[in-house]
């Protein structure tokens, strides 16, 4: 009996009476079911992604030639400002929250989130905030001071657009704080009996680390934005130098959130990759504890690196050294994760036909480029040269597109059968993957050279010597745009007509697969039990002498050391059971 069968036998009821198939209109209601909310998040953020993507292609179209000939410079500035704001605050951050919403309660065997109505509220803040932001483009006064919105520039550009931007980002920040509170309480208080932290899937660890970061840093951004709003609308001079204010203070407050935001955007997808790789390469995750604790380490270190965005701004020399060192150190926990994923892939049985695994491997392969250029950017003398250039644009897109977005796609392909009860078409998933990887590298790789050679960012016109590389970038961005079509069509078609998935199409071990697809209201028939660890793949062919880590001591007792937890027993049952052996 494989571990998957053991786990299923312990949990999946012989006959599920009413799988949670919903009417389509339920997704347009103020539902409090975490699964409905999760899908609401994912679908609406994907729509924002498409809008932000169109803006990116308009920006790239302008940059195909050195002259300003496609849109006016004012519109150009609004386009990249909105592109960045949408992609960060309306796509990657809430998409992470969407997956966490859907999967987290299932993974820990809970019936729902701890605060279902707060959860619904957190989602329903997003659409109006997003629509307001996009509407600003239509009414003709869109924010155009960049997504960083540095004063004094943001105070002298259009007042209406900037006001809308501040309001919208404040709302979106509120939404993510509400979400984070919910995730943390759910994780701490709603785990099924017998699930200790070391039995949690790594996605839960990542969600925990992310939520902690959101809670600690988002309020600082909110404070900064409120002060900025006062400067803009009430004429105060917190950041306005004409009245003695200090624009650099805004930068500190902004980056105190916005650097951690990078980890808010990448940590959940580190978690996703840690789920996808073991399942689809049929091997236990390599170094469970190392990956789990490195998420917390990244979360902590992420709070003390913000000033590396200000190396050319107004901070003293010794402070630059401090932030250089903290920034560099983040490479260590990140490296641990990358090497652990490689260790997991090594010696597995890779299901390369499955798009989820392809995207996960693509994630590791492209994210590492963004990680390496991140270390380079941490080095102060080099950062002074490339700060605010296309090198930085390349770096952040390798991290956020090559990392987060590929992670989102991996998660979509991985959990789609659970969410809809139907399988996605693999062939079109592979086509989607191929176009994405080609488009991604074609768009962003040449930007490294552009930046180092002297092309600064956020410009509508540039030196003609950079024309050729910019053309490559622009055509790459068109390929990226095309790459989403197979995905969109595949999702819509498969959701309606795809082959039935069954409860556990991947033979996975984590608890979300131990219920119907899609799961019924309140998720499980009875409180689930852990019959195996979350990643105990291949235990039936364990040879004598294969080293098992101390992460799972109970497994060394042999295959089928099943039913570690009993729903009637209090939660520390595992330790007692281990002691008995």
């Amino acid at each position, binding site marked *: 009996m494989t571990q998957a069968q053991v786990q299923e036998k312990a949990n999946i009821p012989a006959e599920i009476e009413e799988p949670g198939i919903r009417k389509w209109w339920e997704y347009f209601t103020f539902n409090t079911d975490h699964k409905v909310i999760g899908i609401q998040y994912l679908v609406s953020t994907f729509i924002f992604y498409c809008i932000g993507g169109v803006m990116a292609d308009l920006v790239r179209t302008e940059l195909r030639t050195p002259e300003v000939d496609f849109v006016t410079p004012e519109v150009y500035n609004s386009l990249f400002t909105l592109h960045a704001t949408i992609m960060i605050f309306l796509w990657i951050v809430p998409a992470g929250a969407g997956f966490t919403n859907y999967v987290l309660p299932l993974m820990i065997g809970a019936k729902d989130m701890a605060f279902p109505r707060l959860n619904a509220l957190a989602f329903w803040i997003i659409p109006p905030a997003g629509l307001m932001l996009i509407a600003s483009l239509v009414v003709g006064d869109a924010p155009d001071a960049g997504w960083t919105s540095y004063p004094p520039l943001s105070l002298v550009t259009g007042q209406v657009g900037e006001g809308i931007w501040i309001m919208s980002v404040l709302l979106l920040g509120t939404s993510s704080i509400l979400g984070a509170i919910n995730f943390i309480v759910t994780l701490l208080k709603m785990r099924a009996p017998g699930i200790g932290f070391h039995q949690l899937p790594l996605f839960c660890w990542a969600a925990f680390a992310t939520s902690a970061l959101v809670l600690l840093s988002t309020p600082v951004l909110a404070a900064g934005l409120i002060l900025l709003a006062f400067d803009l609308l009430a004429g105060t001079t917190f950041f306005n130098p004409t009245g003695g204010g200090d624009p650099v203070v805004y930068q500190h407050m902004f980056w105190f959130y916005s650097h951690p935001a990078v980890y808010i955007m990448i940590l959940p997808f580190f978690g996703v990759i840690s789920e996808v790789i073991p399942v689809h390469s049929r091997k236990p995750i390599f170094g469970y504890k190392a990956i789990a604790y490195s998420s917390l380490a990244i979360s902590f270190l992420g709070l003390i690196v913000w000033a590396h965005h200000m190396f050319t701004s107004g901070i003293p020399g010794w402070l630059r050294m401090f932030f250089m060192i903290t920034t560099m150190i983040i490479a260590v926990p990140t490296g641990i994760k990358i090497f652990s994923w490689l260790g997991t892939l090594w010696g597995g*049985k890779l299901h390369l036909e499955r798009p989820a695994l392809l995207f996960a491997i693509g994630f590791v392969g492209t994210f590492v480029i963004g990680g390496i250029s991140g270390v380079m950017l941490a080095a102060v003398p080099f950062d002074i040269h490339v700060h605010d250039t296309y090198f930085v644009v390349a770096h952040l897109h390798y991290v956020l597109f090559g990392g987060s977005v590929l992670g989102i796609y991996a998660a979509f392909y991985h959990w789609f059968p659970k969410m809809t009860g139907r399988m996605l078409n693999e062939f079109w998933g592979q086509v989607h993957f191929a176009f994405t990887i080609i488009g991604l590298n074609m768009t962003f790789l040449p930007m490294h050279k552009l930046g180092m050679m002297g092309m600064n960012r956020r410009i509508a016109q540039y030196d003609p010597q950079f024309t050729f590389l910019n053309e490559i970038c622009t055509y790459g961005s068109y390929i990226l745009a095309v790459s989403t079509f197979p995905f969109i069509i595949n999702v819509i078609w498969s959701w309606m007509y795809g082959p039935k998935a069954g409860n556990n199409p991947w033979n996975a071990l984590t608890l979300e697969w131990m219920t119907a697809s899609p799961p019924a209201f309140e998720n499980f028939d009875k409180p689930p039990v852990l019959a195996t660890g979350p990643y105990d793949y291949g235990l039936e062919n364990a040879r004598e002498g294969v080293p098992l880590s101390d992460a799972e001591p109970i497994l060394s007792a042999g295959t089928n050391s099943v039913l570690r937890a009993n729903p009637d027993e209090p939660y520390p049952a595992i330790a007692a059971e281990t002691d008995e052996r």
Partner: protein
Amino acid sequence: MKIPSSIWTLLIGILLTLVSLWYGQNHDLLPKAASDEASLVDGLFNTMMTVSVGIFLVVEGVLIYTIIKYRRRAGDDKDGLPVHGNVPLEILWTAIPAIIVIGISVYSFDVYNEMGGFNPHAVHEAPMTPQAMKMPGAAIAATLTDTPASTKPNLNQEKSDEAMQDPATAAVRNADQIPQKQNAPGVGSVAPTIGPTPDKEGKPPALTVNVTGLQYAWIFTYPETSVTSGELHVPVGREVQINMTANDVIHAFWVPEFRLKQDAIPGRQSEIRFTPSKEGTYALICAELCGPYHGAMRSQVVVEKPETFAAWMKEQQVASNETLNQAIAVNPAELSPADFLAPHTHNMGIQPEILHQIHN
């Protein structure tokens, strides 16, 4: 014959090292280096590039190898080996990146120091304002907006004021003056500096240029000769100090060939020192988003022989005197009293508001 895997590993390791070393020195990714600081930065970048190429090849190589070697064969539905971890291996791959980043940090520190960036004493030597120390909390807060006491004349403020009085500049600028904060660590206002290189510590720079950034132009003034120019001329091989500030929004002074960048922040002054090492004309780019025409905010840095520079300077002095004479001879009747008196009121320390009241 079966070659043992340890030999393969060794061979691959040697090959990787050679490729990384070669690419790290021959990447052609940076423009030519035209200042003493630039060659230091390039050395650091080449080292980071060497290490990066190695890491990149290892990760991508392992990925490609696993994809080929461990892909699932048709009909094989078994799981892989249940290897959960390997403590020595995990320690190894934690230690290696840790050592690499510490190494890069130390090297960066050294380069930064050589460039004159790291000058911890500058902060401690900055005068504490004696008033602030005696005041209760609220009063300290009230002084935050004031310029802390300083014995040095604030050249940037003067230049910025002069620029404001230029009718062409004033037309696009709001006339509110921006108080300049000088070094005052107590209130968090420290001049961002890349100072003299260690061998030139304590010596004044050979040339000082004041730079004012405004939407969308750079104004250069040479305080010793009062020459004002739209492009920067500097003699080759002499250390130059740039004092910069901005009149409206944040701009950033960047010359890619010098590998130097510094934000010009309204309300603060920033300083960088560098020594241009190659003659030529280089682009000076504003690197911080400063408005819709940010991309057009470019100027030139001309690095020339000292003789040529001296000749240029002379030419500029003659030209600026002529302009001044013309201005005085032609314009007074057309100016409003406030405009006409502006240079004088400034010298006398009279605020425009007061003048306005008196005049009425």
